[in-house]
C-alpha cells in the first residue's frame, strides 16, 4: 500500500513520508512543522486558528512536540520530552473520516485483518487553548496509537463547520510497526550496516541534555520574566489588531510562547497548585483573544471591511 520505494515498517522517516503521500492523495496541504516550541500539534496555527471560521481546510504536518515534564534523561524506553506528532486536520470533517484514518493505517502496514483496531472513548480538552472535542483514542492491539477528535470549540468559540483532527504519536507507531521495544533503537532511516541511523543516534544526547535543562537548570526567574513579556506583547498585538492593524498570527505566537514557558516552569516545580490554575487561565485568555481576533480577519472568514 505504501508508495513505491518507501518502507514504513523499517524506517521512521519512511513512516512519515508514507503518511505524507497518503494524505496528499486525500487532498491535504502538507505543511512543515511550525517553528516554535509547542506542547501538541494542535497548537500549530494551521490547526488552532484554521479550525475556526467557515473556510474549508485540509492539512497534514509533522509537529515536534515539547513536554518538559516528560523528560527521563534518556533512561526510559517510552518517554521523551521531545517527540513527533503527525497531525491531520480536515474541515469540515468528512463522513468517511474513520475509513480514511483506517486507510492511513493500512498504508503504514497495520493490516486490519490481523490487528485489533478499536475506537475507545476519549474526550479531548486543552485547558490552555480553551478547546475541547469528542472522539476516541485509537487502540491497535491494546496500544494507543492515535487520538481522533471532532473539535467542538477552540478558544471558547464554537467550531462551525466542525474539524476532524487526527494525531498520530509517530515514535510509538514506529516502534509498533518496527517491532521495537526501546524508542532509541528505532531505525530512523531504514539503512543497514554502517548506513543505519537509529533514533538514539539522533536524539539520545538531546534527551539527556534537555532533561537536565528542564528539571534542573532552566532559569526560573528569567522564565517568569519571559512569561510576562510574552503575555504583554500578545495583548498589545491584540489591541493593535482591534484598532485595524491586524497582527493576529504574531499575537498567537506570543500565546504559544507563554504556554511553553509555563510548561517549563511547571517542570521546574516552581508553580504551586493554586498558581497553576491561574497560569492556565492567563494562557487561555491569550488564546481566546487570538481566536476572537482571528475571526475578524480574512483567514477567519471576515468579509473585507468587517472586523
Amino acid at each position: 500500500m505504501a508508495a513505491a520505494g518507501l518502507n514504513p515498517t523499517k524506517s521512521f522517516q519512511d513512516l512519515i513520508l508514507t503518511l505524507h503521500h497518503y494524505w496528499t492523495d486525500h487532498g491535504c496541504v502538507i505543511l512543515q512543522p511550525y517553528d516554535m516550541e509547542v506542547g501538541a500539534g494542535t497548537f500549530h496555527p494551521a490547526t488552532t486558528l484554521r479550525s475556526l471560521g467557515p473556510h474549508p481546510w485540509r492539512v497534514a504536518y509533522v509537529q515536534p512536540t515539547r513536554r518538559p515534564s516528560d523528560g527521563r534523561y534518556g533512561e526510559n524506553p517510552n518517554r521523551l520530552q521531545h517527540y513527533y506528532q503527525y497531525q491531520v486536520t480536515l474541515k469540515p470533517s468528512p463522513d468517511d473520516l474513520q475509513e480514511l484514518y483506517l486507510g492511513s493505517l493500512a498504508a503504514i502496514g497495520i493490516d486490519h485483518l490481523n490487528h485489533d483496531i478499536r475506537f475507545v472513548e476519549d474526550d479531548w480538552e486543552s485547558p490552555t487553548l480553551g478547546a475541547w472535542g469528542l472522539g476516541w483514542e485509537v487502540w491497535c492491539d491494546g496500544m494507543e496509537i492515535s487520538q481522533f477528535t471532532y473539535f467542538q470549540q477552540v478558544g471558547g468559540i464554537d467550531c462551525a463547520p466542525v474539524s476532524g483532527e487526527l494525531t498520530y504519536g509517530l515514535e510509538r507507531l514506529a516502534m509498533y510497526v518496527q517491532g521495537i521495544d526501546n524508542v532509541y533503537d528505532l531505525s530512523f532511516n531504514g539503512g543497514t550496516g554502517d548506513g543505519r541511523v537509529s533514533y538514539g543516534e539522533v536524539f539520545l544526547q538531546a534527551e539527556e541534555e534537555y532533561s537536565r535543562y528542564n528539571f534542573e537548570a532552566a532559569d526560573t526567574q528569567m522564565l517568569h520574566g519571559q512569561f510576562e513579556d510574552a503575555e504583554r506583547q500578545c495583548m498589545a498585538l491584540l489591541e493593535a489588531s482591534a484598532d485595524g492593524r491586524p497582527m493576529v498570527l504574531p499575537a498567537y505566537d506570543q500565546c504559544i510562547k507563554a504556554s511553553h514557558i509555563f510548561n517549563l516552569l511547571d517542570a521546574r516545580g516552581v508553580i504551586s497548585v493554586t498558581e497553576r490554575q491561574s497560569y492556565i487561565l492567563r494562557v487561555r485568555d491569550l488564546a481566546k483573544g487570538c481566536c476572537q481576533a482571528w475571526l475578524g480577519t480574512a483567514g477567519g472568514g471576515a468579509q473585507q471591511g468587517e472586523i
Partner: protein
Amino acid sequence: MPELFIELRSEEIPARMQKRAAEDLQRLVTEGLASAGLEFEEAIAHVTPRRLALSVSGLNKSTPDIKEERKGPGTDAPEQAIQGFLKAAGVTLDDCEIVEGKKGAFFVAKVARPGRPTPEVVSELMPQIINKFPWPKSMRWGSGQLRWVRPLQSVITTFNGRTVQYEVGGLTSGSKTIGHRFMSKGPITVKGLKDYIYNLHLANVVVDASERADTIRSDARKLSARHRLQLVEDETLIQETAGLVEWPVVLIGDFDSAFLAVPPEVIITSIKSHQKCFALRDKEGHLANRYLLVSNLIANDGGKKIIQGNNRVIAARLADAKFFWDLDKKTALESRLPELEKITFHAKLGTQRQRVERVEALAGEFGRIIGADVDNARLAAKLCKADLVTGMVGEFPELQGIMGAHYARAEGQEEEVAAAIAEHYKPQGPSDSVPQGKVAQAVALADKMDTLVGFWAIGEKPTGSKDPYALRRAALGVIRILLECNLRVLIVDSLIPAYRRVCMSSDPEALASVDETGPWRGKNVPIDLLELLEFFADRLKVYLRDQGVRHDLIDAVFSLGDQDDLLMIVKRVDALGKFLETEDGVNLLAGVKRATNILRIEEKKEAEKPEARRVDMTGKPLPNLLVQSEERELNRAIGAAIANTERSLLEEDFEAAMRALAKLRAPVDAFFDKVTVNADDPNFRENRLKLLNMIRTATEDVADFTKIEG
C-alpha cells in the same frame, strides 16, 4: 401484528453510555407511540458499540379513530365567537348540534378524526426523538447541526418490513445497514428484529449486549480452565468489554514472571484499568503471569499478532508499575509527610499535612476509647495518607491505602499498622466491609470524623441531593463501624478536641458559628457538634429504616435527649421493638398513651384557671388518698417499676428495663377499668392525676412513648 424496527448506526458509542441510550430510545419511542394512541405488545432494545436498535411489535396499522364532542358558545353568541370556535374545533356549522341547556341553547361540535397510518406518526416522531436525544454528552460534526454522541451514519426505520420515510440531520431513513467493521462486506437489508439479529450475526455482529457478555464470560472461563488457571472474575469489566466489541474473541497473553514481584493488586489494576484485560490465578490462588484479552476480530493469523501486540503493551505497563514499586520503596512513608503540605485538602480546611496531624490525634483518642493500641493507631493515622504522593498512587489513584499498606510492610511496620493503612477508607459503599482490627477501626473513624467535623465547622453541609464531599457516606461509614464492630463512642464528647483542632488549622474567616454553643449533658458544647449529631441521627434513621426498623421507635429513643452513643441507641431501639411485639407491650403502650392524653387534657384545663387554684400534677400521690385497691396496686407497681428500670438502665440491660415496665401492664389496665380519674372530690382527682403522671415518669427513662405510633 406489524412491527416497527429502528436502527440508529453511528461511529463508536462510549461503552458507559450504551445501556442507558438503548433504554432512552425504547422509552422515547414507546411514549411517542402511546401519546398518539398506539398500543404495542412488546418492545426490545439492543445496543452495540456502533448501533442502537429497537423493535416495537404488536402495533396497529393506524391510530384509533377519534370521536369527541366539544361544547361551544351559546347560539346567541356574537358571530366572531362562533366562527372562532368552529375554527378551533376544525369543523363547520353543519357538524354542530344545538343543545338546550339551563342557560339557553349552545352549540356542540361533533368532531370525528379518522385514525392516521402508523408510519405517518412514526415519520413525524423519529426526527423529533433523534433531534432531542438525551445523550449525556453530544457533538456536531461536518457542516451539520444535528447533535449525536458521535457522528450518526445511517438511520433505519421500517414498519411491517417497509421503510418509513423521513429525513433528519441530512440523512434519509432507509432499510440498509452494514455488519462488522472489518469482518463483513456490503449492505444488509433489514425488515425486522428477527432477520436483523440473524443477518447481523452472519455479518459478525452480536446485537445483544448480554449475549456478548455471556460469550466473554464463558469463553474466558473455558480458556482459563484449558490453561489450568482461574479467572479473576470481574463483572464490571465483562460488561465494559461487551460494550467495546461487536464480536468478542477472547485470547490469552502472557508477561514476564519477574513482574509478579509487584503486589498483585497493582498488576490486576494495571491490566484492567489501562488495558481492559482480565487477570488469572494459578491453582494455589497466586496471580499467574498470563492474562485474557477480548478482541473484536477473528484474525487471519488466529490472533498471533494481536496477542504479541498486547503482550508488549502489558509489558510496558508492568515495567512502569515495577519502576514505581521499586522507586517508591526507597522512600520511607514518614519522610513523605512534608510532601503532603503541597496537597490542599480543602481551601478552607488546610493541607493534607494538617489534616493528617488532626487525624493522628483523633485516632489516638478513638484508640483509647475503643481499646486499640494507641501508639499504633496514631502511627497508622500518621502514615495513612503518605501513599498519596507515591508514584504508584499517582498512576493508580484507586490503589490508595492498598499501596500504603504494601509500602508499610516493606519498611517493616507492624501488620496491625499496615492493615489499618489499607483499611482506613473502609467501608466505601454499602457492599464494602468495615475495617477488621481495632487499630484500623480507630483510624477509619478518625479519618471520617475529621472530615465531618471539618465540613461542619466551615458550614459546608450536604443539602438536598448535593453532597459533593460524600459526607453522607462518611457518616454512614461511622455508623456501620460503630454498630458492626460493637464500639461505644459518645459522639459529642469525643469530638470536642477534634473540633478545637479543626478550628485551629482552618481559615478563621470560614468558621461561621464557632462561638455558638448549645447545652449538652449539663455543659455547653459547640453548636456545630450538636448539629452534626442531628445529622448522625438522620443518617441512623435512614440506615435502620433500610433494615426495616420503625423510624418512630428511633424517634422515641432520640427524644430522650443527650443520646449520642449510637450502639446503645440501637440496642434500646431493638429492645423497644421486641417489647412492642408482645401483648404486654402493646397494651402498656395503649395505657401510657391514655394516661398521657388524659394528663394533656387536664393540664390544659388547669392552665385556664387562675394560678393559685391550679392543681399540681407532679409529685407523688398521697397514700392515704389511694382509696381503691386498683389505685394502691398501681402505685406499688409503679414504685417497683421505677426502681427496677433504673437499675436495669444503669446496667444498660434494655431488655430487663422493658420487662420491668411490662409488669405495669395489668395494674394500668385494672386502674383504667375500675377507677374514675376525674372524681367529684377534687382531692381524689388531684391524687389520681398524680398517679397517672407517675406512669409517664416510670416510662420516660426508657423511651418517649408519645412518639410511638399505634
